[in-house]
């Protein structure tokens, strides 16, 4: 018998979404840097900001899952 909270499943789903999002951002940034290596620093900054926005959504889910657990 497995016991636990369904909140964990929600956190997992959120992790899948954030993984897809950050993966796309990272991949596109790699493409951009490969095409234009001289713009690498600018692309990295923009990539980090975009990744932070995506990550925030996943972290909201983690917080909600934690609260659902407690």
């Amino acid at each position, binding site marked *: 018998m497995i016991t636990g909270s369904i909140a964990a499943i929600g956190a997992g789903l959120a992790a899948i979404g954030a993984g897809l999002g950050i993966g796309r951002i990272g991949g596109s940034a790699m493409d951009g840097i490969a095409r234009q290596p001289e713009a690498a*620093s600018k692309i990295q*900054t923009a990539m*980090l*900001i975009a990744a*932070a926005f995506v*990550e*925030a959504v996943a*972290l*909201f889910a*983690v*917080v909600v899952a934690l609260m659902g*657990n407690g």
Partner: protein
Amino acid sequence: MDCSHVFEFKVKRLIVVFTLFLAFFSVTPAAFAQVDTAQVTEDSHAQPEAKEKFDIGKFALHHIADSHSWHVIGHTYIDLPVILYTKAGFVNFSSADFNHDDDGKVIVERKGQRFVKMHEKIYYASDAANEHGQFLSLDEKHHASNERPLDLSITKNVCTLFLSIIILLVVFINVANGYKKRVGKSPKGLQSWMEPIILFVRDDIAKPNLGHKYERFMPYLLTVFFFIWFNNMLGLIPFLPGGANLTGNIAVTMILAIATFCLTVFNGNKYYWKHIFMPDVPWWMYIVMVPVELFGIFTKPIALMIRLFANITAGHILVLSLICLVFVFNSLYIAPVSIAFAVFIGAIELLVAFIQAFIFTILSALFIGMAIEEHH
């Protein structure tokens, strides 16, 4: 000329250093883990039926929470003062009076009032003990329902806050004096360590987002950047000077986010407010647009708050859970694996400590920049 032997020598030295480094990290904590496991098994022999399954969640949450005493090593604690604002005015005593009890069993009596501590929260004690010997009335979820005094104690987090203030002051007064002493000369010592980072904040964070008015906001951006970064790093140190989870405390990140919120609102020019209350859309869209834009003013700092809090907390929980694997499997052989993973995650956390400080600062700059942007 063939210089490959030099290269080879360097590579070999690197390998040796790296192996020693890894060996140090895998041996020392594994040795500690051995002692701990031994204790755990001893305990389980002593009271086989009382031994419950090891609860990772409880353990991790206990370690990232604030505390009234600062754990040094083994059974050594630094007892921090407890300051309460009660019905009879201010009351203060040392947290040692609770005898490190955290289950509400030890009563401290001051000014005719009785206090107990449970899960690092201080309550007014009940008149009689319940069936577990706790002077608290618990509801069905084991949360105490007693009244609480206003707790203004110098806790572990507050101590770390003071410590980081001291570190920041020492570093920055030193650097500022360096600039006064060596006007127009090359930087020296601590100054040459800080200068690239300060320039990074100016050139990569402030200038692109704030435009020509960046200088007004540099003090805030630098303060917030170094405060978050230093505290993230302090939180990564597992023993005494660190160990507190300051930037993983939602109250601390809330104050930082409120500072950004105030700067945005009070520096917003007429274009910013026009964009919110009278956006360039057909008038019947205002019913939707204005509430959404108004909501947006508040969601931005709230996202800042949650992002920093959740990132740091998640990192700490991850490291703690990996260490806990040893106790969950109750086996020494799992220790090298869990330590290797913990070191790996720890290295990533070093990066995250910097990135989160960077993200918080650059988003603050972005929001302020949106508020002060001239019409184009």
